[in-house]
């Protein structure tokens, strides 16, 4: 007899969910009106809590509204002491340096290679392994306007409106126009997207879409993309240095970016990479745990790329806007924060309060949906609270099999069934508890539609960038973003690098930034932070002092 993972009071709430299930099959609540949207965002979205934000005090984007946690790591000195770095000995001399080995980085490398750069003249530097990224964990799918009832113009409108009209139009245009091309290329690489017997790729809705255009590979969409791209990077012998995070960008005496300083995590040595083009593909910032939220992000998502770019003078935009995925696991405790893909709602699961009742349309855009969930729990007190104090709402996964037939959950959500199953929760039989979790960095480094930042020789692609999604990203547009802009960065860098002539290497921009920090009497710990610190306080007070980094 398997022990019920749910305590009695949660099991009672589940019983209520079961009682209402039959009647709810046909029940669809109305979507929010534009006024409802404004109201619930202003009152319940974490972005709108003014005390949690501040304005950047110095640097190229002085005045930019950012979360407190971001200000803490950007308004601070570097972990690198430029005085202790010998820039005369160059360890790698390449055409293109790619910082970050996820989906954007892999795309950048492969498309640079396809556009004339020899593999041996590319270097991918990554803090963990090649492929360790948010890409790997993306579950839902990739948007592309392919079907005849759909087209890129509709995709444009969905993305632009979903982003609250704050998106950069040229970026959205590139995103939606290149989408079918990238999906076709992925098919040619051999990625196994879910298809009908006719060859047509299955497509479903995501939050905020007007047409079904989310293509997926079971609930492993991101992993499928990442594994295949990584295999291609290996097959083409593109050089990689793993466990070697970049800690600062290099510039030359003409003010152009000239590569980066990496840190070898094993030997603790610094590595000088001179590069004619540098592409930042470092992903997101979930491990900063904005406002204490748990996160769906991988371990290395610590905002490093933005920090380094900012010190080199690259502007940031839309940093006020943080995406909380409406459905992160809220129980059991071991997996709190982990992603429960929007696709679960796409397949019919409804969100319910402790009484087993629906209270909102399940597929509003993410920011609206997250706010509605927070309102139901914190505003109306209708949520379930777990023994560890985590609030949550039910996501009625068993409804999916009721609608689509037995076996649907098992087939479509194999990874998730396993994730919950490891801790005794059966999402086929019982609803699962969810709550918003920190998911995606809407803002970031500014780029044009060719993935170029305003700084010469510096490119960026993927989650590290801001502007493509406005102040709210739609589901499936992130796997698309890494594809389209990773490729754009690779092509741009390949086109421009051969013309670049680099001068004398310098870290003066870092020295100047450190001086700015001193002038502003900054007291924050240095950055980039590279990894979050999950050790308990009792350990922190007893660390042996070391000074090899600064």
């Amino acid at each position, binding site marked *: 007899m398997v022990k019920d993972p749910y305590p009695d009071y949660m099991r009672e709430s589940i019983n209520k969910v079961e009682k209402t299930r039959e009647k709810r099959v046909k029940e669809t609540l109305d979507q929010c009106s534009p006024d409802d949207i404004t109201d619930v965002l202003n009152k319940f979205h974490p972005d709108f809590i003014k005390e949690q934000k501040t304005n950047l005090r110095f640097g190229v984007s002085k005045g930019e509204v950012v979360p407190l946690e971001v200000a803490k790591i950007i308004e601070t000195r570097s972990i690198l002491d430029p005085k202790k770095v010998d820039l005369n000995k160059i360890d790698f001399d390449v055409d293109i340096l790619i910082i970050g080995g996820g989906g954007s980085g892999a795309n950048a490398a492969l498309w640079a290679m396809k556009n004339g750069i020899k593999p041996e003249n590319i270097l991918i530097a990554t803090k963990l*392994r090649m492929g360790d990224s948010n890409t790997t*964990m993306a579950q839902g799918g990739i948007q592309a306007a392919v079907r005849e009832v759909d087209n890129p113009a509709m995709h444009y409108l969905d993305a632009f409106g979903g982003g609250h009209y704050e998106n950069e139009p040229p970026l959205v245009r590139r995103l939606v126009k290149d989408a079918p091309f990238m999906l076709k290329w992925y*098919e*040619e690489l051999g990625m196994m*997207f879910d298809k009908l017997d006719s060859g047509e790729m299955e497509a479903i809705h995501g939050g905020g879409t*007007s047409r079904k255009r989310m293509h997926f590979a079971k609930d492993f969409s991101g992993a499928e993309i990442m594994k295949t791209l990584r295999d291609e990077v290996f097959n083409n012998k593109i050089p990689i240095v793993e466990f070697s995070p970049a800690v600062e960008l290099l510039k030359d005496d003409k003010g152009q970016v000239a590569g980066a300083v990496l840190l070898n995590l094993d030997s603790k040595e610094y590595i000088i990479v001179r590069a004619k083009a540098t592409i930042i593909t470092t992903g997101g910032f979930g491990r900063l745990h904005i406002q204490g939220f748990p996160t769906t992000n991988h*371990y290395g998502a610590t905002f490093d790329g933005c920090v380094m770019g900012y010190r080199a003078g690259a502007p940031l935009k839309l940093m006020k806007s943080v995406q909380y995925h409406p459905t992160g696991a809220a129980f059991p405790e*071991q997996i709190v924060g982990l992603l429960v893909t929007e696709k679960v709602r796409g397949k*019919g699961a409804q969100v319910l309060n402790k009484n087993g009742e629906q209270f909102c349309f399940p597929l509003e855009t993410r920011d609206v949906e997250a706010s509605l969930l927070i309102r139901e729990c914190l505003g109306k007190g209708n949520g379930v609270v777990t023994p560890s104090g985590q609030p949550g709402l039910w996501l009625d996964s068993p409804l999916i099999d009721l609608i689509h037939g037995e076996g649907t959950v098992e087939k479509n959500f194999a*990874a998730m069934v396993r994730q919950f199953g490891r801790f005794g929760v059966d999402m086929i039989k019982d609803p699962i508890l969810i709550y918003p979790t920190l998911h995606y960095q809407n803002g970031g480094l500014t780029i044009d539609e060719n993935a170029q930042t305003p700084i010469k020789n510096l490119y960026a692609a993927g989650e590290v960038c801001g502007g493509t999604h406005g102040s709210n990203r739609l589901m499936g547009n992130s796997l698309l973003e890494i594809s389209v802009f990773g490729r754009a960065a690779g092509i741009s860098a390949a086109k421009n690098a051969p013309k670049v002539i680099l001068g004398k290497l310098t870290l003066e921009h870092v020295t100047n930034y450190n001086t700015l920090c001193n002038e502003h009497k900054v007291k924050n710990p240095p950055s980039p932070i590279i990894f979050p610190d999950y050790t308990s306080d009792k350990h922190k007070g007893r660390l042996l002092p070391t000074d090899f980094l600064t």
Partner: protein
Amino acid sequence: MTKTSAEIKQEMVKIYVANTEYEVPSNLTIMKALEFLGWRLERGVGCRGGFCGACSTIYRLKGDHKLYTALACAAQVEDGMVIAQIPINPANKKLYNIDSLKAVPNTMLEFYPEIARCISCNTCTKACPMDIEVMDYVQAALRGDIAQAAHISFDCIMCGLCATRCPAEITQFNVGILARRLYGRYIAPKYKQLSKRVDEVEKGKYDAEISEMMKADQKAIAKLYNSRVREKD
């Protein structure tokens, strides 16, 4: 009456890491238990959610000979757990160009001839933290059944635990990805509408409409956005 979390005393268990005995809260995953001990992880850590295969771990339970495998991020500690991590597998990876491969029965054997050494011991299947029938897909690959090998291995996160345990020294997870790519590229039916749409975009079919929206003021585009009709599910 259900106890509040404050009233419930945290149960502790004994685990063993590098010959040292430690007490850790029983509800932690192996990964969080190491962090509880003060470790700041750099290897053997990745997505922390069971997708990336970075945290491959093997363990025994003290006093028992049996060897178990797990992902440190997804396995809860048990009393008596003796833990060792294997953050990397020295994989045999063959290089190939997907464009010039042929989806014929011998292709996988050609690149990974060691699959012929498979002794059907099923140790790989027992080692897999994703419940994949690893031996079945290796045998399918040996038979030349690319589709079977692809479908059975689909959930593979390439953690390497199978390859680490295999007495025939096969790198199962690399055989798997070759099978999947061959299937996806050459066996799965092509999405014809996709080619058609790529062509239409290239010819500029949607440029005018998108251009108009790019020029529109916020009021106009908001009107367009709010009058969209959502396709039925």
